[in-house]
């Protein structure tokens, strides 16, 4: 395909002599179309990513909370709620990888490298947090302690990465979400092994949904 007329035929359109083959109105249409296509293809749909995580946290943590509600003494969440939470978080991870990976394909340079490091830091953090939980269980930590840790540690780690990542330096909404997650994780831990699932899931989920709305409005501008 070679729709280009070349520099000779493209000529220099001026107010006094507009090229009929490639007039300014067509040039303006091409600019708009090219810009929209590039943004659609190269910009990750972060509102979808944040909304997915918001819903996954609210539903998954909600299921955990319902499964431990009324336990005396506390014995821990049911296998069914653990499976539900795991599947929801896995779905969130897959959706994130697909959306962000597709948008980042072919993009190089410092900013793109920082975004890749940001996601690698999150993956390494999640692996580390769950490895530590296994070590705590192995060392004889109580069910209550494991419950509080399991609900808050991944959130605290995610919050720190979001708040401090150079990849998000100019993105105030995501950095604010990071700070919010740190506050929610640290404060909800005081609700105990039962309440922590309800409080952390609801507040963190709302935080993700709020950022999804902010990013969607910004992307429309």
């Amino acid at each position, binding site marked *: *395909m*070679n*729709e*280009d*007329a*070349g*520099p000779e035929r*493209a*000529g*220099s*359109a*001026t*107010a006094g002599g*507009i*090229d009929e083959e*490639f007039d*300014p*109105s*067509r*040039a*303006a249409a*091409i*600019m708009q179309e*090219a*810009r929209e*296509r*590039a*943004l659609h*293809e*190269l*910009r990750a749909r972060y509102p979808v990513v944040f909304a997915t995580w918001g819903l996954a946290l609210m539903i998954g943590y909600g299921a955990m909370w319902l499964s431990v509600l009324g336990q005396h003494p506390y014995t821990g969440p049911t296998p069914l709620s653990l499976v539900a939470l795991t599947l929801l978080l896995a779905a969130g991870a897959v959706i994130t990888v697909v959306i962000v990976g597709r948008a980042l*394909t*072919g*993009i*190089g*340079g*410092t*900013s*793109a490298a920082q975004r890749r490091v940001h996601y690698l830091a999150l993956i390494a953090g999640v692996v580390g947090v769950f490895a530590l939980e296994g070590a705590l269980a192995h060392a004889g930590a109580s069910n209550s302690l494991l419950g509080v840790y399991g609900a808050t540690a991944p959130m605290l780690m995610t919050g720190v990465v979001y708040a401090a990542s150079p990849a998000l330096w100019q993105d105030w909404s995501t950095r604010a979400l990071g700070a919010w997650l740190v506050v929610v994780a640290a404060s909800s831990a005081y609700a105990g092994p039962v309440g922590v699932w309800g409080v952390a899931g609801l507040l963190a989920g709302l935080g993700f949904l709020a950022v999804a709305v902010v990013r969607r409005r910004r992307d429309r501008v």
Partner: protein
Amino acid sequence: MSDDELDPVIHAPARLRIVVTLSTLAPDEDLSFTRLQDLIGLTPGNLITHLRKLEDAGYVTTVRSGRGVTARTGVSLTASGRTALERYSTALRQLLDGAAEPSGK
């Protein structure tokens, strides 16, 4: 070229698409040749020809890295290319505004 003229290097459909596409990236980012080709919809030969014209004008740079299966050609818009696109957009707006105004008093 006066201020109301459309830069002939940019004022061609394929090159306009290339420059606008690259302008959506951050200034420190580049786009691989193959992804750019997918987005613009040109054959490799045509894309190379247009990139060469833009490169000769100092509007884009291409950097080759890696070897074999890891070989990659990154294409990015230079600061001068961004300025040229801004100037082009301004001239285009003026032309369109002028065309929209009723002629004669």
